[in-house]
């Protein structure tokens, strides 16, 4: 099958002309000049505005809902409740536990209960006050352990064996117990990762129109058009071919727009009920309730190693706070264990992960889905191991390097691996050898490494169709239009698609137009998640472009009566290699091809090869290629205030070939920023009543330009045999190791080991107090090198 062919890592002809060079984005100037259309910019004639009534209780049974008074308000056109859309859905087909509007129960403060469509927002808001809901309040659980142990009293979801377990995964590889017993050292520690959320600046928004001929169109700020399409069809009981889903320009997502959301069903249903277009724009507060952000995790890690630093065993037990619904939780639970098995070789490995429901906003996929938390825990534990064995932390990571073209302990195939180059680069750039352990007390360096998937061969719902499809239309004007289901969420996937087409057809990239993420026009793509788009859509694009190129070359060769191998497409022209005087423009070449082959186009696709371990769940986290990252972070720790200031971040990321290095650098820098932000400033949590602790961009403290440290990004290009021209992912991997590198830098600075995020001044001061109490003689002096501190720690630890 063509879709599974590899296309090679090289340029189609000799050297690259577009790919690999900094290029403007296809939509850059439209965004810069304010003409790009986002979902809330859409205004349709006669459009109504919708608003959502939300639960004031974290856990309650709905006794009754009376919408009579709301319906009677002048200007109100429709009020809907859960009874209007009782079919459950869930992005993972095995765990459909969500309703567009609550049917029988509400499960967190902010859960959707009813929706109103009215002539304007003020009227819709006023109508919400007139909906009478009677609740029977139930016990609520905000702590996952409490939910696990006491949840039988009021299970959050019915039919889950009466407990509050959302998903449990336990897998082991090799003989962990024997390896631990044989290890020279065994480290054990408990680590905690807090909740954080995406914070895309564009709030969720959806607009629906239901035409008289029964066609439903939904414009939505989603990053996965295809899954929204499927969910709408199911919940609204409409045939999928009667539904069109369009993703307009999208104002950021980071995983937060991956699930189908209540507002998408509500505007669709309200449009069907009223015969009018309907828009719903969530407030920033509502976006915090929608959440689907990073799962809080409590993680116990045990690592065995030999005296020379080689890891022998890793044993993990993880409790995951899932919030109130499943979302992607099945995958999260697997990812929490499956994605840790590189860039280091584990001879044996075991993990036991339990995701538990709580009465909080539902967690889901945030950049680095499911694997940022375990990466934090493990990389801090590696740093502890380095200290205990008196091995340089970078050296310890080299000692355990997994290698390339190999396999992980859990059966994942590793192709290219530039992790060693990443380590070299951050070591050199940060002056590690000269400075680590030698900086004055209060300043420190920390290192960490990580790996991440470039898409996964688990297609959410089982099917053997391609994961990515591309359609090309070549026009006699010399224009190529690309139709892709791939969601450009700001990462620049449409720009990459255009570059590939231009490269393969030897065209000016400005003559390639991209139509994306419109289910009526574009072939299916599984959407922007799991860092799959560049890899999979890129491969599909090469597939299609080469087919189109073949037609053009054939037509030109026939016209010139020469062998096809003599025809080159380059620089907007078709050349004869043996007779440079013979030349046609792209436009003329397309016209010849249209004469020869009829209306000119091509399709292409990509599907993953069969991957993953041969066990239940073995395909989850199995990727055709993995990216690798190394970070060094330099911090200042103020021992008076406990405040941690990141001085600089060095990040080297192996993304295979950088198809557009400007975009890659943007992904690396944005990832580093986001990691540092959640490590130091951001926290998504509820208070003891289950009420969100601060659902605003003032309370949820996202860094400004002044708060963000200097970031130096290095692009490492270990050309991957599976990737398009050797490319891998860049959007999520570079977040992972920023957080543990920061924690490890705090240790180098002041000798305290922070195992619980975020690293707030309070936690720093508490740890410093404990340090002073444990070491009354050594502590408060400002002197003392890191090596002395290591020695102190070792004495203290016995």
């Amino acid at each position, binding site marked *: 099958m063509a879709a599974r062919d590899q296309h090679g890592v090289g340029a189609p002809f000799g050297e690259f002309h577009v790919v690999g060079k900094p290029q*403007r*984005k296809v939509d*850059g*100037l439209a*965004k*810069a*000049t*304010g003409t790009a259309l*986002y979902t809330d910019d859409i205004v349709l004639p006669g459009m109504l505005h919708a608003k959502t009534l939300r639960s*004031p209780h974290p856990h309650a049974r709905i006794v009754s809902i009376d919408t009579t008074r709301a319906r009677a*308000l002048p200007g109100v056109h429709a009020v809907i409740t859960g009874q209007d859309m009782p079919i459950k859905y869930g992005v993972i087909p095995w765990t459909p536990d969500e309703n567009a509007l609550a049917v029988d129960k509400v499960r967190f403060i*902010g859960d959707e209960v009813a929706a109103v469509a009215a*002539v304007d*927002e*003020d009227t819709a*808001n*006023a109508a*919400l*006050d*007139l909906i009478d809901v009677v609740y029977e309040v139930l016990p609520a659980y905000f702590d996952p352990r409490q939910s696990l142990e006491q949840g039988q009293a009021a299970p959050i979801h019915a039919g889950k064996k009466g407990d509050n377990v959302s998903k449990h995964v336990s897998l082991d590889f090799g003989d962990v117990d024997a390896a631990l017993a044989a290890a020279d050292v065994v480290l054990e520690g408990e680590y905690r990762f807090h909740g954080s959320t*995406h914070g*895309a*600046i*564009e*709030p969720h928004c959806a607009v629906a129109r239901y035409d008289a001929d029964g066609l439903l169109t939904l414009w939505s700020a989603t990053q996965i058009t295809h899954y929204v399409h499927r969910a709408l069809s199911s919940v609204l009981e409409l045939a999928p071919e009667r539904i069109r889903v369009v993703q307009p320009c999208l*104002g950021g997502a980071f995983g937060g727009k991956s699930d189908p959301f209540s507002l998408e069903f509500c505007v669709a249903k309200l449009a069907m009920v009223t015969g009018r277009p309907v828009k719903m724009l969530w407030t*920033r*507060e509502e976006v915090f*309730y929608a959440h689907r952000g990073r799962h809080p995790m409590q993680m116990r890690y045990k690592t065995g190693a030999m005296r020379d630093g080689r890891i022998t065993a890793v044993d993990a037990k993880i409790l995951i706070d899932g919030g109130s619904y499943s979302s992607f939780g099945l995958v999260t639970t697997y990812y929490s264990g499956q994605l840790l098995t590189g860039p280091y070789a584990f001879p044996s490995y075991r993990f036991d992960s339990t995701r538990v429901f709580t009465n909080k906003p539902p967690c889901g996929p945030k950049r680095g889905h499911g694997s940022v938390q375990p990466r934090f825990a493990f990389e801090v534990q590696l740093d502890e191991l380095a200290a205990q064995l008196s091995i340089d932390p970078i050296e310890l990571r080299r000692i355990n390097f997994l290698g390339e073209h190999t396999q992980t302990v859990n*059966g994942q195939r590793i*192709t*290219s691996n530039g992790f060693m180059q990443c380590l070299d680069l951050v070591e050199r750039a940060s002056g590690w050898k000269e400075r680590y352990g030698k900086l004055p007390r209060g300043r420190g360096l920390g290192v960490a490494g990580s790996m991440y998937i470039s898409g996964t061969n688990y297609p959410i719902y089982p099917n053997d169709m391609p994961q990515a499809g591309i359609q090309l239309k070549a026009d006699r004007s010399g224009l190529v239009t690309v139709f892709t289901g791939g969601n450009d969420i*700001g990462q620049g996937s449409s720009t990459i698609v255009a570059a590939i087409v231009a490269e393969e057809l030897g065209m000016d990239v400005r003559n390639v137009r991209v139509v994306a993420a419109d289910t009526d026009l574009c072939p299916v793509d599984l959407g922007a998640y799991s860092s799959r788009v560049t890899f999979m859509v890129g491969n599909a694009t090469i597939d299609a472009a080469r087919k189109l190129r073949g037609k053009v070359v054939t037509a030109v060769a026939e016209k010139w009566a020469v062998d096809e191998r003599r025809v080159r497409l380059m620089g907007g022209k078709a050349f004869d290699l043996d007779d440079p005087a013979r030349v046609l423009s792209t436009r003329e070449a397309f016209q010849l091809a249209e004469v020869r082959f009829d209306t000119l186009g091509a399709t292409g696709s990509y599907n993953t090869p069969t*991957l*993953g*371990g*041969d066990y239940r769940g073995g395909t989850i986290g*199995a990727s055709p290629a993995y990216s690798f990252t190394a970070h060094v972070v330099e911090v200042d720790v103020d021992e008076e205030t406990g405040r941690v200031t990141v001085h600089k971040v060095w990040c080297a990321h192996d993304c295979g070939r*950088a198809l557009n290095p*400007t975009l890659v*650098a*943007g992904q*690396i*820098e944005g*990832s580093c*920023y*986001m990691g540092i932000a959640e490590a130091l400033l951001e926290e998504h949590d509820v208070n003891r*009543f289950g009420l969100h602790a601060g659902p605003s*961009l003032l309370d949820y403290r996202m860094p*400004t*330009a002044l708060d*963000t440290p*200097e970031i130096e*990004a290095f*692009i*490492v*290009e270990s*050309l991957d*045999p*599976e990737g398009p021209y050797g490319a891998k992912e860049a959007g999520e991997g570079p977040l992972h190791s920023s957080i543990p590198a920061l924690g490890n830098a705090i240790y180098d600075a002041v000798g305290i080991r922070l195992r619980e995020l975020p690293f707030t001044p309070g936690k720093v001061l508490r740890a410093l107090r404990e340090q002073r109490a444990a070491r009354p003689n050594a502590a408060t002096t400002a002197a003392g090198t890191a090596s002395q501190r290591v020695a102190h720690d070792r004495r203290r630890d016995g």
Partner: protein
Amino acid sequence: MGLPRSGARHGHASTGKKVLTRQSAIGTMHGVRPITLEVNGDAHATAAPDHWTLLEVLRYKLGLTGSKQGCDKGDCGACTVLVDGQPRLACLMLARHAVGHIVTTIEGLRPAHIAAGGSGADPIQDAFDRCGALQCGFCQPGMMLSARALLARTPEPSRHEIQAALSGNLCRCTGYTQILQAVETAIAESLGAEGPSAAWQRGPVPPVHPTGEVGDGRP
């Protein structure tokens, strides 16, 4: 508890916010008055409810959707416009209070640049595009207007001055690095110099593994 309704546009629903009575509910029928705003060089006559913000009138009455709403309460800066040349949060300013003032939105920069004899986009817009500062692009209209206002009063700002001037505009995509590079590029080029080099670099390309074959990955 004040939270059963979270449709409110203004603020945390559990804090005191305006509650509309049944009588005043039909916003479009109540308190709507004509209003004339000078935006991007033109006088626009329209009508809007008294309580509508400048952002609402720009977006939903004048169709100038380049100004974005990210929080509607002055936290994110995506709605930043220039009022008499100063950056202002359009979501915190009643439209009525902009009467008699000169408003510039992101849509106004390119036409002004062309009218002044330039071509293409405003140099700030162009530099943002070239430097990769536009990922999702949602915060950038406000960001670019903040940058424009800075350069109008300080033609050669330091990096810290740029960071301070942009610190009211949250960006979630870029980590600000390419934004700062874009502003510095626009400044340098306005002075006839070359912009700063990017903060990223390429490492040496590792050798391609000789056995770059792909098996099925099964153990």
